[in-house]
């Protein structure tokens, strides 16, 4: 029993860190631009498909595919921003929601056209496999994915705190008008933000493809998962985001192990709803 619990916690923690990476992209877009991106999960779905394409065409390992998909998704994010969001920033949030929902339908049906409805998966990745520590089975792929995710979250933290562009992003998040007066070009800053948000999903997509398959509606799950992590974390705290990701990941594995695999999202949603009711600013929220 104790072993099963430890096993679930460790698996959940590793998955949770990947969820934190996915939620990070959503978090900076929502935090900096105040744009409600309903299509975030579908960016993950698209990334996974692109990883699949890169992996099959170039015969690359899933883990290496972000080398191609990250620039692609970054450009995709920037273009999306300039085409769809730039002119609607000052509208009601429902307008942005309608646009991102349209984008979601667009991406989902495009994926359906291009890759049909069957789930796609890559060949075994070199990080596939497992090893044992004290009777606990650890999947190498998850461990590697979690480690890479942590690395990228750290890199984003460095970027936000130590570079001029990152400082501009934080300034735009705190007070857009003041930041504009201080010489921050908010169009460019927002484009960069949305691009980074999309690029992060490409990293996550590559990692996920090393041990998962993807299908056109797979984005729903990641979208709601990352909103849940974000609700739990609140805005503005990266360690909080990681911890929240871990809570969500552990809750998910517990639901799978001890209740019913079909209920994996149930636990996540229940946490989500309870947190919103009881702690609307999240557990670690700055505002």
């Amino acid at each position, binding site marked *: 029993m104790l072993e099963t619990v430890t096993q679930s916690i460790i698996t959940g923690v590793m998955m949770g860190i990947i969820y934190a990476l996915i939620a990070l992209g959503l978090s900076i877009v929502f935090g900096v631009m105040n744009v409600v991106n309903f299509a975030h999960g579908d960016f993950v779905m698209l990334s996974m498909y692109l990883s699949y394409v890169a992996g099959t065409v170039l015969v690359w390992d899933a883990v290496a595919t972000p080398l191609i998909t990250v620039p692609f998704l970054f450009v995709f994010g920037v273009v999306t921003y300039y085409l*769809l969001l730039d002119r609607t920033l000052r509208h009601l949030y429902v307008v942005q*929601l309608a*646009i991102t929902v349209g984008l979601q339908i667009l991406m989902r*049906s*495009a994926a*359906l056209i291009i890759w049909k409805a069957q789930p796609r998966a890559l060949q075994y990745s070199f990080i596939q496999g497992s090893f044992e520590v004290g009777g606990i089975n650890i999947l190498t792929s998850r461990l590697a994915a979690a480690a890479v995710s942590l690395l990228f979250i750290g890199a984003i933290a460095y970027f936000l705190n130590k570079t001029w562009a990152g400082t501009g992003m934080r300034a735009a998040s705190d007070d857009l008008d003041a930041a504009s007066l201080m010489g921050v070009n908010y169009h460019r800053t927002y484009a960069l933000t949305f691009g980074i948000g999309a690029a992060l999903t490409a990293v996550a997509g590559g990692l996920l493809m090393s041990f998962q398959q993807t299908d056109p509606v797979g984005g729903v799950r990641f979208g709601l998962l990352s*909103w849940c992590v974000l609700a739990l974390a609140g805005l503005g705290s990266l360690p909080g985001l990681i911890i929240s990701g871990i809570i969500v990941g552990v809750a998910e594995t517990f639901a799978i192990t001890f209740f019913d695999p079909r209920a994996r999202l149930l636990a996540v949603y229940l946490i989500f*709803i309870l947190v919103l009711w009881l702690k*609307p600013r999240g557990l670690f929220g700055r505002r």
Partner: protein
Amino acid sequence: MKAQPFYKRLPIALLLVILAAALVPLAFRSNQYAMVLVTTVLLFAVLASAWNIIGGMAGQLDLAVGAYVGLGAFTAGTLLIRWNITPWLGMIVGGFVATGFAVLIGFPLFGFKIKEVWYALTSSALVEVLRVIFLMWNEVGGPTEVYLPAGTNPWYSLRFNTYTPYFYIMLVLLILVIYLNHRIRNSRLGYSLLALGEDEDAVEVLGVNSQAAKLKALMIYAFISGVVGGLYACIYGFLHPSFFSTAMSTEIAILGIVGGMGITYGPLIAAIFLVSFREFLRASLGGQLEGLYLVVYAVLLILIAMFQPRGIAPLVYRGYQKVLALIGWRRHGQPADAQSH
């Protein structure tokens, strides 16, 4: 305002539309596909018009219509399957079940002042929670499709071979919902809802209990959706957890938004144009490439949201006024944009 009979307050165009709609089945009697199409348009119009009460007027972006539809469908369906209770009654019971659920959810939700995107996401999550619960609840079917018995009398079991009766029932529901929208809009509740959609704190200061007003709006909307859900089960003839659909919930809200938030006829106009456009695309493009029609549909949605952020209803309304002016019949004291505040 009160002294006028209600038919005088309805635009003539609406009466004409209703009249034309009532004649549609006569034109399409032999064409079942067209009947499916118009019934689908009506279904979406009813739901989107109900959504208008909570979403458009009160500004609460509810994405849970699938939850209420599903609850209504499973209530009415299970009552018919298990105890042979007519869906006429089952629809009403389904409406009340949905309302009960709405109170259960809405009370804490509005009590804790959950707003905007967080309200939208919680309501969306509720649909998914219910779907998973019903997927695991084997007594009402679990993951398998449960078929509704056809029965001997189609008027008792509400199971018809053609879509025509469903069309008329749906049309009656639509007229009721539009009338309800109209009444609410011109009532104390409607003014409170419209005001709190703009600025909740200011409304509270003026002595309006915004929590109670939102809860009332949510209950009305849930009841209608539950009733429609009961009919939905009869039309499709089976029960399945996929009735708790987040995609459908989002689509209803989108119809409400692109129709024009808070405009009585907005969702109806959006449903007529967009749903029939989508189904037309599905029919004409669906054969070539699966999913292509949705690409076109999504592009249209994005374009409307970008270039007509107040919705398409004001456009249609302006066109209607122009037509009236053209034929030399203009109503007095009504500016062209009176409906779109």
